[in-house]
C-alpha cells in the first residue's frame, strides 16, 4: 500500500463520513408504526411442546423403534431365557445357592407360636 493509495482511502473515508442523511417523515412514521404494532401484537416465542422435545432428545422415530425392539427383547429374555444366557450367567456369578438361615429354628418358633 503506497502512501498515495493510503491517502486516497483516507480521503474516501473522510468524505463518506460526511453522509448524514436526514430521517424522512415517512421513515419515522414507519418505525413508530412498527413500535405501536409490536405493543399490540407482541411476538411471543412459542413454548416448545413436550412430545416433540422428547422425540428430538432421543433422536426421533428411528430411536423409538430401536427402544421398542430392545424392550421386547428384554422381556423375552426374562420370560424364556435361552440356555446360553443361563450358562453365561452361571459362569459369571456362579451357580445359585440357597441358604436357609432359619432351618434349625423354624420349628421352634412355629411351636412357640402354636403353643401360645
Amino acid at each position, binding site marked *: *500500500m503506497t502512501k498515495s493509495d493510503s491517502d*486516497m482511502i483516507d480521503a*474516501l*473515508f473522510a468524505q463518506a463520513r460526511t453522509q448524514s*442523511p436526514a430521517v*424522512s417523515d415517512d*421513515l419515522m412514521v414507519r418505525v413508530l408504526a412498527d413500535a*405501536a404494532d409490536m405493543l399490540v401484537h407482541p411476538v411471543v416465542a412459542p413454548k416448545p411442546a413436550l412430545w416433540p422435545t422428547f422425540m428430538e432428545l432421543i433422536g426421533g422415530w428411528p430411536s423409538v423403534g430401536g427402544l421398542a425392539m430392545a424392550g421386547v427383547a428384554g422381556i423375552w429374555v426374562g420370560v424364556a431365557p435361552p440356555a446360553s444366557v443361563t450358562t453365561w450367567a452361571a459362569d459369571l456369578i456362579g451357580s445359585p445357592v440357597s441358604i436357609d438361615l432359619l432351618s434349625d429354628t423354624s420349628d421352634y418358633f412355629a411351636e412357640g407360636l402354636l403353643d401360645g
Partner: protein
Amino acid sequence: MTTQLGSWRDAPDAALLLAYAQGDMDAARVLTARVLPRVLAQATRMLSDRAEAEDVSQDALMRLWKIAPDWRQDEAQVTTWLYRVTANLCTDRLRKRRNVPLDEIAEPADPQRSAPGQLQDKARFSALSDALAQMPERQAQAVSLRHLEGLSNPEIADVMNISLRSVESLTARGKRALTGILQGRKAELGYDDD
C-alpha cells in the same frame, strides 16, 4: 403529551426502551428520535443506497422493539446493540451484491444529483460500498465501524464481541484489502486530480 415527552428527554436509552416495553409510546418516540438518525447514517455509509439504508434502519428498530421486553440494562448499551445489528443487516445486503457484476448495479435515478461534483461523490460512495461487499464480512464490519463510524477499538470490540487484538488485526487487514480493491479505480474516481 409534551410534558411526558419532556420528562423522557434526559432518560438513558435503556430506561426508554424498558418504558416502551411497558407500553409507553412517548418513550419510543424519544428513543427513535435519538437513535434512528445514527442507524440511518451507518446504513447509508455502508450501503450507499438510500432506499436500502431506510429498509435496514426500519428492520434494525423493529428488532429493538421485539427485544424490548427482554432487555437487561446491565448487558449492553442500546447504541452498541444497534451498531451490531445494523452492521449485520448491512453485511447481509452487501453479500447479495457479490453475485451481481459491478456493471449491472444500477445507479439510482436522482434528478437533483446532476452537478458533476455530486455525481463524483456518488460514484465514490458507491465504489466504497461495493468494495466493502467484496471484502471478508468481519473485515468489512471492522473497517466500517472504525473508519466510517469513527468508533474506537474498544468500542468496536464491544460491538463485534471480539478482542482488541482481533479488532486491530481486522481493521489493518481490512484497510489493506479495501485499498487493493480500489487502487485500480483511482483515476475513475477522480483521485488523480486531487
